[in-house]
C-alpha cells in the first residue's frame, strides 16, 4: 500500500493548476513561435507540456498539449491541429513514465526523454505521410528529401528525419523542463521522483542534457546538408 501511495499523484492546490496550465501552454506557443521565426531544426513546443505532465500529472499535460496546438492552429494555420495528438502522447509518456519512477535516475530520465521522442515520432509519421504527403514546411523536410534521394521509401524517410529531429527536441525539452521544475516552489515539487542533484549539479545536469540535445540537432543538420 505504501508503494502504491508513492506512485500515486499527490493532491495539488487548485491555484497552482490554474496558474501553471495557461503558463505552460503559453511557454509551448512561445517556443513554437521562436522556432518558426528562427527556422530552428527542432520543434520546442513541448517544454510546457513536459513541465505540466511531470509536476501535475499526465492528463493535465495532455490538456496543455491540446490547448497549445488548438491556439497554434489559429496563429499559424491549421497544420498544427492534427499534431495535437503528438503533444498529448508526449504528455502521457512523460507523465506516466515519471509516475512509474522511470525518470528518478539520471540514466532513467535520459531514456524517458528518448522514449518520448520515439513514441512521438511513431505518432507523427502517419500524420506527416497520410495527411500532408510527407512535408509540412519544417526543417525536417530537407532531411526527408535527402533520405528519399538515397532510395528509401516515403514512410522510412519521414520516420528517419522525424526521429532525429524529435530526439534532439525531446532531450532539450526534457532537460529545460527539469531546470524549470527545479525553480518551482518546493511544496509543489517535493514528491517528484526526478534525478537528485545538489548545489552546482542542479545547473550542470540540465545543461549537459541540453548540450546532448544540441549535439543530436547538429547531427541532424549534418545529415540534411
Amino acid at each position, binding site marked *: 500500500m505504501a508503494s*502504491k*501511495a508513492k506512485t*500515486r*499523484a*499527490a*493532491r*495539488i*492546490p*487548485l*491555484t497552482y*493548476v490554474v496558474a501553471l*496550465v495557461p503558463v505552460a501552454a503559453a511557454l509551448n506557443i512561445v517556443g513554437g513561435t521562436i522556432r518558426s521565426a528562427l527556422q530552428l531544426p527542432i520543434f520546442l513546443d513541448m517544454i510546457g507540456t513536459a513541465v505540466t505532465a511531470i509536476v*501535475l*500529472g*499526465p*492528463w*493535465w*499535460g*495532455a*490538456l*496543455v*498539449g*491540446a*490547448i497549445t*496546438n*488548438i491556439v497554434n*492552429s489559429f496563429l499559424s*494555420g*491549421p*497544420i498544427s*491541429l*492534427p499534431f*495535437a*495528438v503528438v503533444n*498529448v*502522447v508526449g504528455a*502521457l509518456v512523460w507523465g506516466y513514465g515519471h509516475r512509474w519512477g522511470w525518470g528518478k535516475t539520471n540514466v532513467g530520465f535520459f531514456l524517458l526523454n528518448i522514449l518520448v521522442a520515439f513514441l512521438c515520432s511513431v*505518432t507523427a509519421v*502517419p*500524420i506527416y505521410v*497520410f*495527411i*500532408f*504527403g510527407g*512535408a509540412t514546411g519544417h526543417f525536417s523536410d530537407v532531411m526527408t528529401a535527402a533520405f528519399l534521394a538515397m532510395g528509401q521509401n516515403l514512410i522510412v524517410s519521414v520516420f528517419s528525419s522525424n526521429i532525429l529531429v524529435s530526439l534532439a527536441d525531446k532531450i532539450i525539452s526534457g532537460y529545460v523542463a527539469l531546470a524549470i521544475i527545479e525553480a518551482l516552489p518546493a511544496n509543489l515539487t517535493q514528491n517528484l521522483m526526478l534525478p537528485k542533484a545538489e548545489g552546482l549539479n542542479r545547473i550542470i545536469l540540465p545543461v549537459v542534457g541540453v548540450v546532448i540535445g544540441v549535439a543530436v540537432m547538429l547531427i541532424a543538420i549534418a545529415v540534411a546538408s
Partner: protein
Amino acid sequence: MNKTVGAKEGLGAGVIGIGLMMLFLPGASQNIADLDFVASEPFSILLGAVYVLGVIIILAGLGVIFGNFDSEE
C-alpha cells in the same frame, strides 16, 4: 479556499482537452484539405484523426478504471 485537485480532476481535464480538439477537427480538416500541397480529402483527414483520438479516449477510460482515486484525500 484551499481546494486541491488530483489525478481524477487531471483525467477529467485531459478528456476535456481531447473534446476541444474534436470540436475543432471538422473545420480544420476542411482547411487542411484546402492547402495547395495536401492531396487528402477532408473526410479521410477527419477519419484518421478521430481514430487516433478514439484510442486516446480509450486510454483515458482505462485510466478511470484502473486509477486509484478512492484513497486520495
